């Protein structure tokens, strides 16, 4: 764990992103090829569909020390598998509620819809989320204080 | 020569002992249940017994054995000799649980000296509290049937008996005497009257234990019923939750796991229970205790047969925790009586 004061300035959050193969991952790729700047805080895990993201994945990421978790999929109606993102929405909004109810800061979790053409949006979402997590500081509630 | 200590002086004693560098554990109310935790003040005088047995002070549910580092394919174990020296004081241990610690002592020094347990055990002074209300929820304790009593001094360095506004203090060992020394003027000499009162309290408590188990012939009966269909009957309703074993003061099984996070790891041991199918499953997938009946049978055999054979003492101290917590009323007294019946 970093020292208080000076070290906090240099602290960079770790954000885990679960991105769907068809839209959001391609969107992130577009941001890269278009040379749009976005924070290096995010580590992306590609999943075939946002519907694949089990709430357990998110909780486990927090437990392993993630400071924030971002799940991103196709816009409603655009899912490559027709309905995967609707299922994701049901599961993950309820899980977000549970984070709130257990007092584990729910604002460390974010969902977004990013299409393959929205490189700019991807960068915005990540930038904004990183700013938010930076304000919140290291996540210790589920990771056991390792920061 | 017995001494007394006033109830309102106990907190002061705890303070005095802690300031001498000793870690003090005692029954503490924690989110609605009583558990053995660090004590920084007095001790509730109305607790029946802790939900989790005090063995967790000497044998924690999860204990790190050593750390290791991983660098690529190179793993370095950072094993350090177990040599902690701070003394431990356990205050408010019930006599049944103290007798259970004797079972653990025998077990952890049986065929292998377990350094983690033995190190803590050597440092520990155990102060027992006589039971005045030996009454676990829905009457289930039966220490008098398995060789104990609400005021047994087995395994204890000191025994305190609640006689109203004060405890009568008996010390049996050097460790106990040391506490008397540390306490100094907090202790006073007991009057004749106090000793008389203590005898009465002890007798009354003993009369309050209504559950009885006749241990005569248990071993023979169990040996004769290994394959008896009797075990099917009662184990059918077992849920396999393992509360009976995790809360048992003499149960001592543990599982060893490596917990690895980002290049660092620790080898830990955590309580395990013979009531879980994964306890016995082999790498081949074969499970020698495939059903709940085998697992329940193992629990009873371990307490009343194997423990006798291996350690020369009963594995059950009659604390009643397994009976009062079982969600489906599996009652070890009934089970043993039933086995004896089946053997006939």
């Amino acid at each position: 764990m970093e020292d208080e004061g000076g070290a906090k300035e240099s602290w960079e959050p770790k954000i885990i992103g679960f991105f769907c193969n068809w839209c959001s991952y391609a969107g992130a790729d577009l941001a890269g090829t278009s040379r749009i700047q976005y924070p290096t805080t995010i580590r992306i895990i590609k999943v075939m569909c946002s519907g694949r993201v089990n709430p357990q994945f998110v909780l486990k990421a927090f437990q392993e020390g993630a400071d924030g978790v971002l799940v991103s999929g196709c816009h409603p109606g655009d899912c490559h598998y027709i309905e995967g993102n609707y299922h994701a929405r049901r599961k993950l909004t309820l899980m977000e509620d549970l984070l709130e109810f257990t007092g584990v800061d729910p604002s460390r979790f974010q969902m977004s819809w990013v299409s393959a053409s929205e490189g700019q949006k991807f960068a915005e979402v990540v930038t904004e989320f990183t700013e938010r997590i930076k304000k919140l500081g290291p996540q210790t509630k589920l990771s056991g204080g390792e920061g | 020569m017995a001494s007394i200590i006033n109830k309102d002086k106990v907190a002061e004693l705890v303070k005095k002992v802690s300031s001498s560098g000793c870690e003090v554990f005692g029954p503490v109310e924690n989110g609605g249940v009583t558990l053995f935790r660090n004590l920084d003040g007095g001790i509730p005088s109305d607790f029946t017994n802790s939900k989790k047995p005090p063995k967790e002070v000497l044998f924690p549910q999860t204990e790190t054995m050593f750390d290791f580092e991983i660098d690529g394919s190179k793993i370095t174990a950072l094993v350090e000799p177990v040599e902690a020296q701070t003394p431990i004081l356990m205050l408010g241990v019930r006599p049944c649980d103290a007798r259970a610690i004797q079972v653990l002592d025998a077990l952890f020094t049986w065929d292998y000296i377990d350094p983690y347990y033995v190190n803590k055990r050597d440092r520990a002074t155990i102060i027992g509290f006589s039971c005045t209300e030996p009454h676990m929820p829905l009457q289930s304790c039966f220490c008098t049937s398995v060789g104990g009593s609400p005021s047994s001094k087995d395994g204890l360095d000191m025994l305190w008996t609640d006689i109203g506004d004060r405890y009568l203090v008996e010390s049996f060992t050097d460790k106990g005497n040391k506490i008397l020394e540390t306490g100094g003027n907090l202790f006073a000499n007991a009057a004749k009257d106090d000793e008389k009162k203590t005898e009465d309290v002890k007798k009354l408590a003993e009369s309050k234990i209504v559950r009885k188990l006749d241990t005569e012939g248990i071993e023979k009966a169990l040996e004769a019923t290994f394959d008896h269909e009797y075990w099917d009957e009662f184990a059918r309703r077992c849920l396999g939750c393992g509360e009976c074993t995790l809360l048992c003061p003499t149960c001592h099984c543990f599982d060893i796991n490596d917990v690895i996070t980002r290049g660092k790891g620790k080898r830990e041991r955590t309580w395990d229970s013979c009531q879980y199918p994964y306890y016995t499953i082999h790498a081949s997938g074969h499970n020698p205790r495939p059903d709940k009946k085998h697992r329940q049978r193992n629990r009873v055999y371990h307490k009343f047969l194997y423990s006798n054979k291996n350690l020369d003492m009963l594995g059950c101290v009659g604390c009643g925790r397994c009976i009062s917590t079982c969600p489906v009323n599996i009652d070890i007294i009934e089970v043993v009586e039933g086995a004896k019946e089946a053997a006939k």
Partner: protein
Amino acid sequence: MTDYKALEKQIQDQARQWLESGEVKYVIGFEKGDNSPVCRPVFIYKPEDAGKLAWGPLCNNNLTKYLVEEVQIKPKKGEEPDLRPVGIVVKPCDSKTIVELMKENIVPRERVKIIGVISEGTINPKALDKALKDVPLDKIAGIQILDGGDNFTIKYDGEPLSVPKDELLNGKCKVCVVHNPVVYDIFVGDKVTQIDKDEFEDIADLEAMSDEERYEYWKEQLSKCIRCYACRDTCPLCYCEECVFDRTKPYNWNEKTVDLPENFFYHMVRAMHLAGRCVDCGGCERVCPMDIPIRKLNRFLLKRAKERFKVVPGINVEDKAMFGDYDIDDPGEGIK
């Protein structure tokens, strides 16, 4: 007011009849404990044993757990499986479990014959223990409990005790709105008029807290957890052949370590696995040796599921499973 003895008689008669005709393989019911007033599960195979079946406010267990075990037994090679239905005695909350089990295609309707008994609340054994403080210890096993309207009357050799129901009832019974079985072959008792509103008042105080206060609350509660998994083992809806918490291959989701982060993980994942399915039978909380208010997690998700997706589990077999279904207009506030 419920006349427990009359209900008990009806249950016994029905079980006897089914066993005599061979319609059912056996009957899962309750019997009185030998050394405890609390009732326990029993399996009746012979009509002459039907008299063992008991009924009363101390019939706490949700017996459908054994129903799941029954349908999950794989027949031995070359053996013709006995697919006759199993008789089971259920309270209204347990009958809701059967609805969920049928919905999830675990228990086929034809494998079960249900004796559905009305219930206006069962007694928490821990609360009973407190109420019986002054009853002589050797009399406790033999007490009788009668329904006296707002009170329970506890009869034993001495002066009968009258204890307000509020002091004794299980938490789930205080907020329960379903007093009649929802699925049954035989209905036992007189239909109870029921209020059709669950306001979730029991979790309002927690919801009103700040995040930090709630975290402190759960920290205190979950730090007690000994991870015996009794809440899972008693839950009829936890029927996976291999539970995620037992799995070690290919990946260990939950370390065996008993500490706060692992306990949090366990309880949150368990709650998520029951979201939209849990019928609030209260089994998990009742069996918890550490008195963790597990139901509160379930209740919260029950509430949010109702608010967000209008899902109320355990009522209608035709309903779709919450996570197996979706609505295009499901709320998704906060999604960017």
